[in-house]
């Protein structure tokens, strides 16, 4: 009976949130097969850690979203994925000269909103939120002082809030 109640709870959680989480995972992991793997991993993590989730700290969805984002960035940064991407880029450049199915995932979910930001802001959000770089790393990558990255990031997030509303 307990198992059965647990299963209903899990089904509820999955049926309500899997689509929203899959969307953010696809924003970070454009490969659909890998994104599906990440989604499974995310739900297993969520289910195993749900008891340690503290609802005073934040909303359940916010927590799940962060689990999904972190798992996705980890997946993209894994060695296996990097290698696969290199191979894919090589073959795609040879045969198609660009234009992969991956660009489609820019047009869904949060990334769609971020793409509506002005270029300076967009770059910062993509690098920090979708690619997981720290502000320090971004400062070095873009050759912009860390202070500027911080203030510009804040402005970008304010803008983003306006767009989401």
């Amino acid at each position, binding site marked *: 009976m307990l*198992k*059965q109640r*647990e*299963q*209903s709870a*899990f*089904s509820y959680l*999955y049926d309500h*949130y*899997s*689509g*929203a*989480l*899959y*969307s*953010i995972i*696809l924003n970070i992991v454009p490969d659909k097969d890998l*994104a*599906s793997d990440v*989604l*499974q991993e995310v*739900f*297993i993590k969520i*289910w195993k850690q749900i008891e340690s989730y503290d609802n005073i*700290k*934040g*909303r359940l*969805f*916010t927590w799940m*979203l*962060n689990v999904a*984002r*972190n798992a996705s960035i980890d997946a993209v940064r894994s060695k296996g994925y990097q290698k696969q991407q290199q191979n894919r880029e090589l073959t795609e450049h040879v045969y198609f000269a660009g234009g992969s199915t991956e660009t489609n995932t820019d047009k*869904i*979910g*949060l990334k*769609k*909103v971020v793409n509506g930001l002005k270029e300076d802001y967009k770059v910062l959000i993509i690098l*920090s*939120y979708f690619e997981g770089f720290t*502000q320090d790393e971004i400062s070095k990558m873009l050759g912009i002082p860390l202070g500027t990255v911080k203030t510009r*990031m*804040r*402005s*970008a*997030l*304010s803008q*983003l*809030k306006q767009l*989401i*509303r």
Partner: protein
Amino acid sequence: MEIKVYIESGIIESYVLGLADPEDVLEIERLRKEYPEVQQAIDDFSIAIQEQALKNAVMPPKEIKEQLLAALSFQDPLTYKSVAPMHVAHNSNLTNENRVPSIYSSNTNWKYLAAASIMLFIVSAIGNLLLYNRYTSTKNEYAALINERNTLQANNQVFQTNLKNYQSASEMMADPSVAMVQLKDPAHKKDNMTTVFWDSKTKDVYLLTNKLPAPDKNQQYQLWALVDGKPVDAGMLDPQCTSLCKMKNIPKAQAFAITLEKVGGSPAPTMDQLFVMGTI
């Protein structure tokens, strides 16, 4: 008021999205308790993000849920029958009737697969053992065959050498310039006999041992040529030579004799050890 500027600064969003520095996180978690506006702003943005995400949801492939339910093992095969009808009440009939049996069967499938793989392992282990045994016996048989072949080859070489010897002997005997001398026991008591072939052109001497007693280990037969009444050493009889043995070159002789001497021969024949003798 300053807190309003703080709220508008973008730090709330960075906190909700998990982009805030550790110091910022500490600050905001302190301020959210102090200022209800901060808590409100956090909630507002969290809800906005959630709604945006739900609105833009992308449905994942159907099988993922099934795999997750199986992975988290909600479904115990033993309780399957009692549990199943309650699921039908929960969700739509179609998806459940499709899904629950598939989990059930996938669970038992694992057991069958495990049993099958163990069986396969045992069968393969037995197979390996049988093959190993066959391999060992084949290896031994092969070694025996190699041995046999080597023996046969060695025998064959011996026969070939013998044949060549006999061929050259018969050729020599047929040659009219070769004189054949039969050497016999001068006392005519024993039937010891050897034959000497003397080529009058090349002066080569060959000895054919027809019948001579085997000498002691420290003794050896020595052939003598009698030239004008004097014995001349014509060579030692090699105990290894079983057929026609080439002896020393003798330009001229009237008779041949064989004595038994010490191994290596003597400068003069020991006459009381004269075994055979014959004149040309």
